[in-house]
Protein backbone atom coordinates (compact mmCIF):
# COMPACT_ATOMS: atom_id res chain seq x y z
CA UNK A 1 0.00 0.00 0.00
CA UNK A 2 2.84 2.36 0.85
CA UNK A 3 4.50 1.49 -2.43
CA UNK A 4 1.28 2.01 -4.27
CA UNK A 5 0.75 5.51 -2.87
CA UNK A 6 4.33 6.55 -3.55
CA UNK A 7 4.23 5.21 -7.09
CA UNK A 8 0.91 6.93 -7.68
CA UNK A 9 2.26 10.28 -6.56
CA UNK A 10 5.44 9.98 -8.56
CA UNK A 11 3.51 8.72 -11.60
CA UNK A 12 1.00 11.52 -11.42
CA UNK A 13 3.63 14.20 -10.99
CA UNK A 14 5.67 13.04 -14.00
CA UNK A 15 2.38 12.49 -15.84
CA UNK A 16 1.42 16.11 -15.29
CA UNK A 17 4.76 17.27 -16.65
CA UNK A 18 4.10 15.10 -19.71
CA UNK A 19 0.68 16.74 -19.89
CA UNK A 20 2.26 20.21 -19.88
CA UNK A 21 4.56 19.28 -22.74
CA UNK A 22 1.76 17.47 -24.57
CA UNK A 23 -0.59 20.44 -24.22
CA UNK A 24 2.00 22.58 -25.97
CA UNK A 25 2.35 19.98 -28.70
CA UNK A 26 -1.41 19.87 -29.20
CA UNK A 27 -1.72 23.67 -29.33
CA UNK A 28 0.94 23.92 -32.03
CA UNK A 29 -0.37 20.94 -34.00
CA UNK A 30 -3.94 22.18 -33.96
CA UNK A 31 -3.06 25.72 -34.95
CA UNK A 32 -0.39 25.14 -37.56
CA UNK A 33 -0.18 21.39 -38.38
CA UNK A 34 3.43 21.37 -37.24
CA UNK A 35 4.56 18.14 -35.58
CA UNK A 36 6.79 19.55 -32.93
CA UNK A 37 9.75 17.42 -31.90
CA UNK A 38 11.25 20.33 -29.94
CA UNK A 39 8.80 19.97 -27.05
CA UNK A 40 11.39 18.05 -25.02
CA UNK A 41 14.03 20.64 -25.77
CA UNK A 42 11.72 23.42 -24.64
CA UNK A 43 11.45 21.53 -21.33
CA UNK A 44 15.23 21.28 -21.28
CA UNK A 45 15.49 25.00 -21.97
CA UNK A 46 13.10 25.73 -19.10
CA UNK A 47 15.16 23.60 -16.73
CA UNK A 48 18.44 25.28 -17.63
CA UNK A 49 17.01 28.79 -17.76
CA UNK A 50 15.64 28.52 -14.23
CA UNK A 51 19.03 27.18 -13.14
CA UNK A 52 20.63 30.15 -14.86
CA UNK A 53 18.23 32.67 -13.33
CA UNK A 54 18.15 31.32 -9.79
CA UNK A 55 21.55 29.72 -9.25
CA UNK A 56 23.79 31.67 -11.60
CA UNK A 57 22.31 35.18 -11.49
CA UNK A 58 20.80 34.82 -8.05
CA UNK A 59 17.29 36.09 -8.71
CA UNK A 60 14.57 35.27 -6.19
CA UNK A 61 12.56 32.31 -7.45
CA UNK A 62 9.39 34.27 -8.27
CA UNK A 63 11.32 36.60 -10.54
CA UNK A 64 13.33 33.63 -11.85
CA UNK A 65 10.20 31.83 -12.97
CA UNK A 66 9.01 34.96 -14.74
CA UNK A 67 12.34 35.46 -16.52
CA UNK A 68 12.48 31.78 -17.52
CA UNK A 69 9.01 31.79 -19.01
CA UNK A 70 9.61 35.07 -20.85
CA UNK A 71 12.94 33.88 -22.29
CA UNK A 72 11.43 30.56 -23.38
CA UNK A 73 8.55 32.40 -25.06
CA UNK A 74 11.05 34.69 -26.81
CA UNK A 75 12.99 31.67 -28.13
CA UNK A 76 9.79 30.05 -29.35
CA UNK A 77 8.64 33.21 -31.10
CA UNK A 78 12.01 33.48 -32.81
CA UNK A 79 11.76 29.85 -33.92
CA UNK A 80 8.29 30.39 -35.30
CA UNK A 81 9.20 33.57 -37.11
CA UNK A 82 12.56 32.51 -38.54
CA UNK A 83 12.16 28.81 -39.23
CA UNK A 84 8.53 27.77 -39.41
CA UNK A 85 6.97 30.77 -41.09
CA UNK A 86 8.80 30.13 -44.40
CA UNK A 87 7.66 26.51 -44.32
CA UNK A 88 3.91 27.04 -44.04
CA UNK A 89 2.15 24.59 -46.33
CA UNK A 90 5.14 22.26 -46.80
CA UNK A 91 4.54 18.49 -46.56
CA UNK A 92 4.41 16.78 -43.20
CA UNK A 93 7.87 15.20 -43.52
CA UNK A 94 9.43 18.67 -43.82
CA UNK A 95 7.62 19.76 -40.68
CA UNK A 96 8.91 16.73 -38.79
CA UNK A 97 12.47 17.16 -39.99
CA UNK A 98 12.65 20.89 -39.40
CA UNK A 99 11.64 20.48 -35.77
CA UNK A 100 14.09 17.61 -35.40
CA UNK A 101 16.78 19.92 -36.75
CA UNK A 102 15.73 22.63 -34.29
CA UNK A 103 15.81 20.13 -31.48
CA UNK A 104 19.37 19.19 -32.40
CA UNK A 105 20.42 22.85 -32.43
CA UNK A 106 18.73 23.65 -29.11
CA UNK A 107 20.32 20.62 -27.47
CA UNK A 108 23.72 21.53 -28.88
CA UNK A 109 23.35 25.11 -27.60
CA UNK A 110 22.26 24.09 -24.11
CA UNK A 111 25.13 21.60 -23.89
CA UNK A 112 27.63 24.10 -25.23
CA UNK A 113 26.59 26.78 -22.75
CA UNK A 114 26.05 24.72 -19.60
CA UNK A 115 28.05 21.56 -20.29
CA UNK A 116 26.89 17.95 -20.10
CA UNK A 117 27.39 17.45 -16.37
CA UNK A 118 24.29 17.48 -14.16
CA UNK A 119 23.78 20.69 -12.20
CA UNK A 120 21.60 21.47 -9.26
CA UNK A 121 20.08 24.46 -7.51
CA UNK A 122 18.24 24.93 -4.29
CA UNK A 123 14.77 23.63 -4.91
CA UNK A 124 12.12 26.22 -4.18
CA UNK A 125 9.26 23.77 -4.09
CA UNK A 126 8.99 22.86 -0.39
CA UNK A 127 11.31 19.99 0.40
CA UNK A 128 10.73 17.22 2.88
CA UNK A 129 7.91 14.77 2.87
CA UNK A 130 4.37 14.13 3.97
CA UNK A 131 3.75 10.96 5.95
CA UNK A 132 0.42 9.41 5.08
CA UNK A 133 -0.09 6.19 6.99
CA UNK A 134 2.78 3.93 5.95
CA UNK A 135 3.67 5.99 2.87
CA UNK A 136 6.24 8.78 2.71
CA UNK A 137 5.38 11.17 -0.09
CA UNK A 138 7.70 13.85 -1.41
CA UNK A 139 6.17 17.27 -0.92
CA UNK A 140 7.77 18.67 -4.04
CA UNK A 141 6.11 16.05 -6.19
CA UNK A 142 2.78 16.42 -4.40
CA UNK A 143 2.77 20.16 -4.93
CA UNK A 144 3.81 19.97 -8.56
CA UNK A 145 0.56 18.17 -9.43
CA UNK A 146 -1.82 21.05 -8.58
CA UNK A 147 0.59 23.58 -10.10
CA UNK A 148 0.54 21.73 -13.41
CA UNK A 149 -3.21 21.35 -13.24
CA UNK A 150 -3.58 25.07 -12.61
CA UNK A 151 -1.45 25.91 -15.65
CA UNK A 152 -3.44 23.49 -17.78
CA UNK A 153 -6.71 24.95 -16.48
CA UNK A 154 -5.46 28.42 -17.40
CA UNK A 155 -4.74 27.17 -20.92
CA UNK A 156 -8.22 25.71 -21.09
CA UNK A 157 -9.79 28.98 -19.96
CA UNK A 158 -7.69 30.81 -22.53
CA UNK A 159 -9.15 28.70 -25.32
CA UNK A 160 -12.68 29.19 -24.11
CA UNK A 161 -12.80 32.83 -23.23
CA UNK A 162 -10.17 34.95 -24.92
CA UNK A 163 -10.23 36.38 -28.38
CA UNK A 164 -6.92 34.78 -29.35
CA UNK A 165 -7.98 31.43 -27.98
CA UNK A 166 -11.19 31.41 -29.96
CA UNK A 167 -9.32 32.57 -33.07
CA UNK A 168 -6.99 29.61 -32.59
CA UNK A 169 -9.86 27.18 -32.40
CA UNK A 170 -11.34 28.73 -35.52
CA UNK A 171 -8.06 28.22 -37.39
CA UNK A 172 -7.80 24.65 -36.20
CA UNK A 173 -11.30 24.04 -37.46
CA UNK A 174 -10.99 25.57 -40.91
CA UNK A 175 -8.03 27.70 -41.85
CA UNK A 176 -9.51 29.28 -44.96
CA UNK A 177 -12.82 30.16 -43.35
CA UNK A 178 -10.95 31.69 -40.40
CA UNK A 179 -8.75 33.67 -42.76
CA UNK A 180 -11.77 35.07 -44.57
CA UNK A 181 -13.24 36.18 -41.26
CA UNK A 182 -10.24 38.42 -40.75
CA UNK A 183 -8.24 36.29 -38.32
CA UNK A 184 -4.50 36.89 -38.60
CA UNK A 185 -2.86 33.51 -39.07
CA UNK A 186 0.73 34.62 -38.32
CA UNK A 187 -0.47 36.12 -35.04
CA UNK A 188 -2.22 32.90 -34.08
CA UNK A 189 0.84 30.80 -34.96
CA UNK A 190 2.96 33.09 -32.81
CA UNK A 191 0.55 32.81 -29.89
CA UNK A 192 0.51 29.01 -30.27
CA UNK A 193 4.30 28.78 -30.06
CA UNK A 194 4.40 31.23 -27.18
CA UNK A 195 1.87 29.21 -25.20
CA UNK A 196 3.59 25.92 -25.97
CA UNK A 197 6.92 27.33 -24.83
CA UNK A 198 5.42 28.80 -21.67
CA UNK A 199 3.75 25.56 -20.65
CA UNK A 200 6.87 23.53 -21.46
CA UNK A 201 9.04 26.03 -19.53
CA UNK A 202 6.85 25.62 -16.45
CA UNK A 203 7.16 21.85 -16.87
CA UNK A 204 10.91 22.29 -17.14
CA UNK A 205 11.04 24.44 -14.00
CA UNK A 206 9.24 21.73 -12.04
CA UNK A 207 11.54 19.06 -13.46
CA UNK A 208 14.50 21.13 -12.37
CA UNK A 209 13.08 21.18 -8.86
CA UNK A 210 12.08 17.53 -8.66
CA UNK A 211 14.68 15.70 -10.74
CA UNK A 212 17.56 18.14 -11.07
CA UNK A 213 19.19 19.87 -14.00
CA UNK A 214 20.55 17.35 -16.53
CA UNK A 215 20.62 17.10 -20.32
CA UNK A 216 18.53 13.91 -20.06
CA UNK A 217 15.45 16.05 -19.50
CA UNK A 218 15.15 16.40 -23.28
CA UNK A 219 14.42 12.67 -23.61
CA UNK A 220 11.04 13.32 -22.05
CA UNK A 221 10.05 15.02 -25.28
CA UNK A 222 9.44 11.65 -26.90
CA UNK A 223 6.92 10.69 -24.23
CA UNK A 224 4.72 13.42 -25.63
CA UNK A 225 3.74 11.14 -28.50
CA UNK A 226 2.14 8.29 -26.53
CA UNK A 227 0.41 10.94 -24.42
CA UNK A 228 -1.12 12.79 -27.35
CA UNK A 229 -2.15 9.61 -29.14
CA UNK A 230 -3.84 8.35 -26.01
CA UNK A 231 -5.47 11.69 -25.23
CA UNK A 232 -6.29 12.61 -28.78
CA UNK A 233 -4.99 15.67 -30.53
CA UNK A 234 -8.07 17.74 -29.82
CA UNK A 235 -8.12 18.97 -26.31
CA UNK A 236 -6.25 20.04 -23.22
CA UNK A 237 -8.42 17.60 -21.28
CA UNK A 238 -7.12 14.77 -23.46
CA UNK A 239 -3.54 15.80 -22.70
CA UNK A 240 -4.23 15.70 -18.95
CA UNK A 241 -5.86 12.26 -19.12
CA UNK A 242 -3.18 10.92 -21.45
CA UNK A 243 -0.38 12.34 -19.29
CA UNK A 244 -1.84 10.88 -16.12
CA UNK A 245 -2.37 7.42 -17.69
CA UNK A 246 1.12 7.25 -19.21
CA UNK A 247 2.79 8.61 -16.07
CA UNK A 248 0.98 6.13 -13.83
CA UNK A 249 1.61 3.19 -16.19
CA UNK A 250 5.32 3.98 -16.22
CA UNK A 251 5.46 4.32 -12.45
CA UNK A 252 3.58 1.07 -11.80
CA UNK A 253 5.50 -1.04 -14.34
CA UNK A 254 8.76 0.47 -13.10
CA UNK A 255 7.81 -0.25 -9.48
CA UNK A 256 6.13 -3.63 -9.74
CA UNK A 257 7.57 -5.29 -12.86
CA UNK A 258 11.00 -3.77 -13.41
CA UNK A 259 13.33 -5.00 -16.20
CA UNK A 260 13.22 -1.52 -17.71
CA UNK A 261 9.72 -2.33 -18.91
CA UNK A 262 8.61 1.17 -17.92
CA UNK A 263 10.69 2.52 -20.82
CA UNK A 264 8.75 0.60 -23.43
CA UNK A 265 5.26 0.33 -21.97
CA UNK A 266 4.06 3.74 -23.28
CA UNK A 267 4.96 2.70 -26.81
CA UNK A 268 3.32 -0.71 -26.49
CA UNK A 269 0.15 1.04 -25.33
CA UNK A 270 0.49 3.47 -28.20
CA UNK A 271 0.66 0.67 -30.80
CA UNK A 272 -2.35 -1.05 -29.21
CA UNK A 273 -4.38 2.16 -29.25
CA UNK A 274 -3.49 2.86 -32.87
CA UNK A 275 -4.43 -0.69 -33.88
CA UNK A 276 -7.89 -0.31 -32.34
CA UNK A 277 -8.54 3.38 -32.95
CA UNK A 278 -6.31 4.78 -35.72
CA UNK A 279 -6.99 8.37 -34.69
CA UNK A 280 -6.24 7.91 -31.01
CA UNK A 281 -8.62 7.15 -28.18
CA UNK A 282 -10.34 10.51 -28.15
CA UNK A 283 -9.29 11.75 -31.57
CA UNK A 284 -11.67 12.72 -34.32
CA UNK A 285 -11.60 10.80 -37.59
CA UNK A 286 -10.64 12.97 -40.52
CA UNK A 287 -12.74 12.54 -43.62
CA UNK A 288 -10.68 13.00 -46.75
CA UNK A 289 -11.91 14.03 -50.12
CA UNK A 290 -9.90 13.78 -53.31
Amino acid sequence: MADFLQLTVSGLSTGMIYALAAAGFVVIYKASDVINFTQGDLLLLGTYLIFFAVAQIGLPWSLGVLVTVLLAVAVALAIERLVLRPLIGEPIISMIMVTIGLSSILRGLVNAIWGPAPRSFESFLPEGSVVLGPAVLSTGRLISIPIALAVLAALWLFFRHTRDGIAMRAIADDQQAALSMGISIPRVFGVAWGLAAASAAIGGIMLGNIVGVTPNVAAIGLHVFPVVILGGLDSIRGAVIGGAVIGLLEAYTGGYVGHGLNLVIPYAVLILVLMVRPYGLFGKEIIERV
Partner: protein
Amino acid sequence: MSFECGVFHTRYRSDMGLRPKPAQRIRLALFAAAVLVFPFFASPYWLDLANQVAIATVGAIGLNILVGYTGQISLGQGAFMAVGAYAAGLLTLNLGLPWGVSIVLACFITAAVGTFFGLPSLRLKGLYLAIATLAAQEIVQWLMVHWTAVTGGTEAIVLPSPRLFGIRLNSAFSFYWIAVLAAAGTALFTANLFRSRAGRAFVAVRDQDIAASVIGVDIFRTKLLAFATSSFFAGLAGALIAFYRSIVTWERFTLEVSIVYLAMIIVGGLGTVRGSLFGAALITLLPALITNVGRALQETAPAVATLLPYAQQGVFGLVIILFLIFEPKGLSKLWGNVKDYFHVWPFAYRRG
Protein backbone atom coordinates in the same frame (compact mmCIF):
# COMPACT_ATOMS: atom_id res chain seq x y z
CA MET B 1 30.27 22.48 -75.94
CA SER B 2 26.81 21.33 -75.10
CA PHE B 3 26.49 17.57 -75.22
CA GLU B 4 22.79 17.25 -75.16
CA CYS B 5 21.54 19.26 -78.09
CA GLY B 6 19.83 17.12 -80.66
CA VAL B 7 19.85 13.69 -79.11
CA PHE B 8 17.56 12.01 -81.55
CA HIS B 9 16.02 8.70 -80.66
CA THR B 10 14.52 6.61 -83.38
CA ARG B 11 13.21 3.89 -81.10
CA TYR B 12 11.12 4.00 -77.93
CA ARG B 13 13.53 1.54 -76.42
CA SER B 14 16.49 3.88 -76.58
CA ASP B 15 14.34 6.84 -75.50
CA MET B 16 13.12 5.01 -72.41
CA GLY B 17 16.52 3.68 -71.40
CA LEU B 18 17.87 4.26 -67.92
CA ARG B 19 20.51 6.64 -69.25
CA PRO B 20 19.11 7.82 -72.60
CA LYS B 21 21.58 10.64 -73.26
CA PRO B 22 25.27 10.27 -74.13
CA ALA B 23 26.24 12.91 -71.59
CA GLN B 24 24.57 10.89 -68.86
CA ARG B 25 26.49 7.80 -69.90
CA ILE B 26 29.76 9.71 -69.96
CA ARG B 27 29.15 11.12 -66.49
CA LEU B 28 28.26 7.68 -65.17
CA ALA B 29 31.37 6.16 -66.70
CA LEU B 30 33.56 8.90 -65.19
CA PHE B 31 31.96 8.36 -61.79
CA ALA B 32 32.39 4.59 -62.03
CA ALA B 33 36.04 5.03 -63.02
CA ALA B 34 36.61 7.34 -60.06
CA VAL B 35 35.00 4.83 -57.71
CA LEU B 36 37.18 2.01 -59.08
CA VAL B 37 40.41 3.97 -58.90
CA PHE B 38 39.75 5.67 -55.57
CA PRO B 39 40.82 2.89 -53.16
CA PHE B 40 44.27 2.55 -54.76
CA PHE B 41 45.11 6.14 -53.85
CA ALA B 42 43.13 6.76 -50.71
CA SER B 43 44.53 6.55 -47.21
CA PRO B 44 42.87 4.09 -44.79
CA TYR B 45 41.10 7.03 -43.13
CA TRP B 46 39.40 8.07 -46.35
CA LEU B 47 38.72 4.44 -47.27
CA ASP B 48 36.91 3.99 -43.98
CA LEU B 49 34.83 7.09 -44.69
CA ALA B 50 34.12 5.84 -48.22
CA ASN B 51 32.90 2.53 -46.81
CA GLN B 52 30.65 4.35 -44.39
CA VAL B 53 29.27 6.44 -47.24
CA ALA B 54 28.65 3.35 -49.38
CA ILE B 55 26.80 1.57 -46.57
CA ALA B 56 24.86 4.72 -45.72
CA THR B 57 23.90 5.00 -49.39
CA VAL B 58 22.33 1.54 -49.27
CA GLY B 59 20.35 2.51 -46.19
CA ALA B 60 19.41 5.93 -47.52
CA ILE B 61 18.14 4.51 -50.80
CA GLY B 62 16.12 2.00 -48.82
CA LEU B 63 14.58 4.73 -46.67
CA ASN B 64 14.00 6.88 -49.74
CA ILE B 65 11.94 4.11 -51.35
CA LEU B 66 9.59 4.30 -48.39
CA VAL B 67 9.62 8.00 -47.52
CA GLY B 68 10.57 9.76 -50.71
CA TYR B 69 8.87 7.57 -53.29
CA THR B 70 5.91 6.12 -51.39
CA GLY B 71 5.33 8.97 -48.93
CA GLN B 72 5.15 6.78 -45.83
CA ILE B 73 7.06 8.54 -43.06
CA SER B 74 9.24 6.17 -41.09
CA LEU B 75 11.18 6.88 -37.92
CA GLY B 76 12.07 3.19 -37.67
CA GLN B 77 15.06 2.97 -40.00
CA GLY B 78 17.44 2.35 -37.11
CA ALA B 79 15.26 -0.50 -35.88
CA PHE B 80 15.17 -2.16 -39.29
CA MET B 81 18.92 -1.86 -39.65
CA ALA B 82 19.25 -3.38 -36.21
CA VAL B 83 17.16 -6.35 -37.28
CA GLY B 84 19.42 -6.83 -40.31
CA ALA B 85 22.61 -6.55 -38.26
CA TYR B 86 21.48 -8.89 -35.48
CA ALA B 87 20.00 -11.39 -37.95
CA ALA B 88 23.20 -11.51 -39.98
CA GLY B 89 25.34 -11.74 -36.87
CA LEU B 90 23.31 -14.42 -35.14
CA LEU B 91 22.91 -16.53 -38.28
CA THR B 92 26.67 -16.55 -38.76
CA LEU B 93 27.51 -17.17 -35.11
CA ASN B 94 24.82 -19.68 -34.16
CA LEU B 95 24.17 -21.54 -37.41
CA GLY B 96 27.65 -21.11 -38.87
CA LEU B 97 26.31 -19.89 -42.19
CA PRO B 98 28.77 -18.26 -44.58
CA TRP B 99 28.65 -14.47 -44.44
CA GLY B 100 27.14 -14.00 -47.90
CA VAL B 101 24.26 -16.36 -47.15
CA SER B 102 23.55 -14.81 -43.79
CA ILE B 103 23.54 -11.29 -45.27
CA VAL B 104 20.96 -12.34 -47.87
CA LEU B 105 18.86 -14.15 -45.27
CA ALA B 106 19.11 -11.14 -42.96
CA CYS B 107 17.75 -8.94 -45.73
CA PHE B 108 14.71 -11.19 -46.14
CA ILE B 109 14.16 -11.40 -42.39
CA THR B 110 14.28 -7.60 -42.16
CA ALA B 111 11.86 -7.34 -45.07
CA ALA B 112 9.45 -9.60 -43.14
CA VAL B 113 9.80 -7.53 -39.97
CA GLY B 114 9.38 -4.33 -41.96
CA THR B 115 6.22 -5.67 -43.56
CA PHE B 116 4.87 -6.46 -40.12
CA PHE B 117 5.49 -2.93 -38.89
CA GLY B 118 4.02 -1.67 -42.16
CA LEU B 119 0.69 -3.30 -41.35
CA PRO B 120 -0.65 -0.24 -39.46
CA SER B 121 0.10 1.88 -42.54
CA LEU B 122 -3.16 0.70 -44.08
CA ARG B 123 -5.08 2.74 -41.55
CA LEU B 124 -2.54 5.33 -40.45
CA LYS B 125 -1.19 8.32 -42.27
CA GLY B 126 1.11 11.22 -41.72
CA LEU B 127 1.57 12.07 -38.07
CA TYR B 128 -0.03 8.87 -36.83
CA LEU B 129 2.13 6.64 -39.00
CA ALA B 130 5.25 8.57 -37.99
CA ILE B 131 4.39 7.99 -34.34
CA ALA B 132 3.66 4.30 -34.94
CA THR B 133 7.08 3.83 -36.53
CA LEU B 134 8.62 5.77 -33.64
CA ALA B 135 6.99 3.23 -31.32
CA ALA B 136 8.37 0.39 -33.46
CA GLN B 137 11.83 1.90 -33.11
CA GLU B 138 11.53 2.21 -29.33
CA ILE B 139 10.19 -1.34 -28.98
CA VAL B 140 12.91 -2.90 -31.13
CA GLN B 141 15.53 -0.84 -29.28
CA TRP B 142 14.18 -2.13 -25.96
CA LEU B 143 14.18 -5.71 -27.26
CA MET B 144 17.81 -5.39 -28.35
CA VAL B 145 18.84 -4.43 -24.84
CA HIS B 146 16.49 -6.59 -22.78
CA TRP B 147 15.93 -9.77 -24.81
CA THR B 148 19.21 -11.08 -23.52
CA ALA B 149 18.66 -14.69 -24.55
CA VAL B 150 18.79 -13.80 -28.24
CA THR B 151 20.64 -10.54 -28.62
CA GLY B 152 23.05 -10.81 -25.75
CA GLY B 153 21.65 -7.60 -24.26
CA THR B 154 24.16 -4.85 -23.77
CA GLU B 155 27.02 -7.24 -24.53
CA ALA B 156 28.23 -6.80 -28.08
CA ILE B 157 28.12 -9.68 -30.56
CA VAL B 158 31.56 -10.20 -32.05
CA LEU B 159 31.69 -11.57 -35.59
CA PRO B 160 34.51 -13.18 -37.55
CA SER B 161 35.56 -11.08 -40.51
CA PRO B 162 34.23 -12.36 -43.83
CA ARG B 163 36.39 -14.55 -46.07
CA LEU B 164 36.35 -14.81 -49.82
CA PHE B 165 38.32 -17.60 -51.54
CA GLY B 166 40.32 -18.02 -48.38
CA ILE B 167 41.24 -14.34 -48.11
CA ARG B 168 40.18 -12.53 -44.96
CA LEU B 169 38.28 -9.37 -45.87
CA ASN B 170 39.15 -7.51 -42.73
CA SER B 171 40.68 -4.34 -44.14
CA ALA B 172 38.88 -1.22 -45.25
CA PHE B 173 40.35 -1.83 -48.71
CA SER B 174 38.87 -5.29 -49.18
CA PHE B 175 35.53 -4.35 -47.66
CA TYR B 176 35.33 -1.35 -49.99
CA TRP B 177 34.51 -3.65 -52.91
CA ILE B 178 31.67 -5.37 -51.05
CA ALA B 179 30.20 -2.09 -49.89
CA VAL B 180 30.48 -0.42 -53.29
CA LEU B 181 28.98 -3.47 -55.00
CA ALA B 182 26.07 -3.43 -52.58
CA ALA B 183 25.53 0.31 -53.08
CA ALA B 184 25.72 0.03 -56.86
CA GLY B 185 23.34 -2.94 -56.90
CA THR B 186 20.87 -1.10 -54.67
CA ALA B 187 21.02 2.02 -56.83
CA LEU B 188 20.55 0.06 -60.05
CA PHE B 189 17.65 -1.93 -58.62
CA THR B 190 15.91 1.18 -57.31
CA ALA B 191 16.40 3.21 -60.48
CA ASN B 192 14.80 0.39 -62.42
CA LEU B 193 12.10 -0.22 -59.81
CA PHE B 194 10.59 3.17 -60.52
CA ARG B 195 10.33 2.43 -64.20
CA SER B 196 8.23 -0.63 -63.41
CA ARG B 197 4.55 -1.05 -62.62
CA ALA B 198 5.17 -1.62 -58.90
CA GLY B 199 7.37 1.49 -58.64
CA ARG B 200 4.86 3.68 -60.44
CA ALA B 201 2.22 2.41 -58.01
CA PHE B 202 4.46 3.55 -55.10
CA VAL B 203 4.61 7.05 -56.54
CA ALA B 204 0.86 7.11 -57.17
CA VAL B 205 0.22 6.19 -53.54
CA ARG B 206 2.52 9.00 -52.42
CA ASP B 207 0.88 11.63 -54.56
CA GLN B 208 -2.71 10.84 -53.66
CA ASP B 209 -3.54 7.44 -52.25
CA ILE B 210 -7.30 7.64 -52.63
CA ALA B 211 -6.97 8.68 -56.25
CA ALA B 212 -4.50 5.84 -56.77
CA SER B 213 -6.96 3.31 -55.44
CA VAL B 214 -9.64 4.71 -57.76
CA ILE B 215 -7.47 4.00 -60.80
CA GLY B 216 -6.86 0.46 -59.67
CA VAL B 217 -3.78 0.47 -57.44
CA ASP B 218 -4.12 -1.93 -54.54
CA ILE B 219 -3.05 0.51 -51.81
CA PHE B 220 -2.54 -1.97 -49.02
CA ARG B 221 -0.45 -4.30 -51.15
CA THR B 222 1.59 -1.39 -52.50
CA LYS B 223 2.29 0.06 -49.07
CA LEU B 224 3.33 -3.31 -47.70
CA LEU B 225 5.54 -3.90 -50.72
CA ALA B 226 7.14 -0.51 -50.13
CA PHE B 227 7.78 -1.37 -46.49
CA ALA B 228 9.21 -4.75 -47.52
CA THR B 229 11.53 -3.35 -50.21
CA SER B 230 12.64 -0.48 -48.02
CA SER B 231 13.42 -2.63 -45.03
CA PHE B 232 15.15 -5.18 -47.26
CA PHE B 233 17.77 -2.54 -48.02
CA ALA B 234 17.77 -1.26 -44.45
CA GLY B 235 18.57 -4.85 -43.46
CA LEU B 236 21.33 -4.99 -46.05
CA ALA B 237 22.85 -1.81 -44.66
CA GLY B 238 22.60 -3.18 -41.13
CA ALA B 239 24.18 -6.51 -42.10
CA LEU B 240 27.01 -4.72 -43.90
CA ILE B 241 27.67 -2.60 -40.82
CA ALA B 242 27.73 -5.77 -38.73
CA PHE B 243 30.38 -7.40 -40.89
CA TYR B 244 32.33 -4.22 -41.50
CA ARG B 245 32.68 -3.44 -37.81
CA SER B 246 32.77 -7.15 -36.84
CA ILE B 247 30.68 -6.15 -33.90
CA VAL B 248 26.96 -5.66 -33.31
CA THR B 249 25.78 -3.43 -30.49
CA TRP B 250 22.46 -1.75 -29.93
CA GLU B 251 24.08 1.70 -29.71
CA ARG B 252 24.55 1.77 -33.46
CA PHE B 253 20.82 1.51 -34.15
CA THR B 254 19.09 4.03 -31.91
CA LEU B 255 16.46 6.60 -32.82
CA GLU B 256 19.31 8.98 -33.65
CA VAL B 257 20.26 6.67 -36.52
CA SER B 258 16.72 6.85 -37.89
CA ILE B 259 16.93 10.62 -37.70
CA VAL B 260 20.34 10.73 -39.38
CA TYR B 261 19.01 8.65 -42.28
CA LEU B 262 15.94 10.88 -42.62
CA ALA B 263 18.30 13.85 -42.68
CA MET B 264 20.30 12.18 -45.48
CA ILE B 265 17.30 11.83 -47.75
CA ILE B 266 15.99 15.31 -46.92
CA VAL B 267 19.35 16.94 -47.60
CA GLY B 268 19.98 14.77 -50.65
CA GLY B 269 16.52 15.01 -52.13
CA LEU B 270 13.37 13.02 -51.49
CA GLY B 271 12.47 10.54 -54.18
CA THR B 272 15.76 10.44 -56.05
CA VAL B 273 18.46 7.79 -56.10
CA ARG B 274 21.32 10.18 -56.71
CA GLY B 275 19.99 12.36 -53.89
CA SER B 276 20.33 9.42 -51.53
CA LEU B 277 24.00 9.13 -52.49
CA PHE B 278 24.62 12.88 -52.13
CA GLY B 279 22.83 13.01 -48.80
CA ALA B 280 24.60 9.93 -47.46
CA ALA B 281 27.95 11.43 -48.45
CA LEU B 282 27.25 14.87 -46.97
CA ILE B 283 25.79 13.69 -43.68
CA THR B 284 28.51 11.06 -43.21
CA LEU B 285 31.37 13.39 -44.07
CA LEU B 286 30.07 16.41 -42.13
CA PRO B 287 31.04 15.15 -38.65
CA ALA B 288 34.44 14.05 -39.98
CA LEU B 289 34.95 17.49 -41.45
CA ILE B 290 34.01 19.20 -38.19
CA THR B 291 36.33 16.88 -36.27
CA ASN B 292 39.17 17.80 -38.61
CA VAL B 293 38.47 21.50 -38.20
CA GLY B 294 38.42 20.97 -34.45
CA ARG B 295 41.80 19.22 -34.53
CA ALA B 296 43.23 22.09 -36.52
CA LEU B 297 41.91 24.49 -33.90
CA GLN B 298 43.16 22.38 -30.99
CA GLU B 299 46.37 24.34 -30.61
CA THR B 300 45.20 27.81 -31.48
CA ALA B 301 41.86 27.75 -29.72
CA PRO B 302 41.45 24.84 -27.31
CA ALA B 303 38.26 26.37 -25.90
CA VAL B 304 36.62 26.03 -29.27
CA ALA B 305 37.79 22.45 -29.64
CA THR B 306 36.04 21.37 -26.45
CA LEU B 307 32.76 22.61 -27.87
CA LEU B 308 33.18 20.27 -30.84
CA PRO B 309 30.55 17.59 -30.07
CA TYR B 310 27.96 20.28 -29.54
CA ALA B 311 29.03 22.06 -32.69
CA GLN B 312 28.41 18.79 -34.56
CA GLN B 313 24.92 18.59 -33.09
CA GLY B 314 24.22 22.20 -33.96
CA VAL B 315 25.59 22.03 -37.49
CA PHE B 316 23.62 18.85 -38.17
CA GLY B 317 20.40 20.61 -37.21
CA LEU B 318 21.37 23.75 -39.07
CA VAL B 319 22.06 21.87 -42.30
CA ILE B 320 18.64 20.22 -42.18
CA ILE B 321 16.87 23.52 -41.54
CA LEU B 322 18.77 25.47 -44.18
CA PHE B 323 18.05 22.83 -46.80
CA LEU B 324 14.37 22.68 -45.91
CA ILE B 325 14.00 26.44 -46.09
CA PHE B 326 16.20 27.25 -49.08
CA GLU B 327 16.31 24.07 -51.16
CA PRO B 328 13.62 21.61 -50.08
CA LYS B 329 14.44 19.38 -53.05
CA GLY B 330 17.95 18.95 -51.75
CA LEU B 331 21.37 18.45 -53.27
CA SER B 332 19.83 16.51 -56.11
CA LYS B 333 18.06 19.68 -57.27
CA LEU B 334 21.26 21.71 -56.89
CA TRP B 335 23.07 19.20 -59.10
CA GLY B 336 20.17 19.47 -61.55
CA ASN B 337 20.64 23.25 -61.59
CA VAL B 338 24.31 22.82 -62.42
CA LYS B 339 23.45 20.47 -65.26
CA ASP B 340 20.77 22.81 -66.55
CA TYR B 341 23.29 25.61 -66.61
CA PHE B 342 25.71 23.64 -68.76
CA HIS B 343 22.91 22.17 -70.83
CA VAL B 344 22.63 25.40 -72.81
CA TRP B 345 25.98 26.65 -71.66
CA PRO B 346 27.21 29.29 -74.06
CA PHE B 347 23.67 30.61 -74.52
CA ALA B 348 22.50 31.31 -71.04
CA TYR B 349 19.15 32.71 -72.08
CA ARG B 350 17.23 30.28 -69.93
CA ARG B 351 18.58 31.78 -66.74
CA GLY B 352 16.62 34.30 -64.74
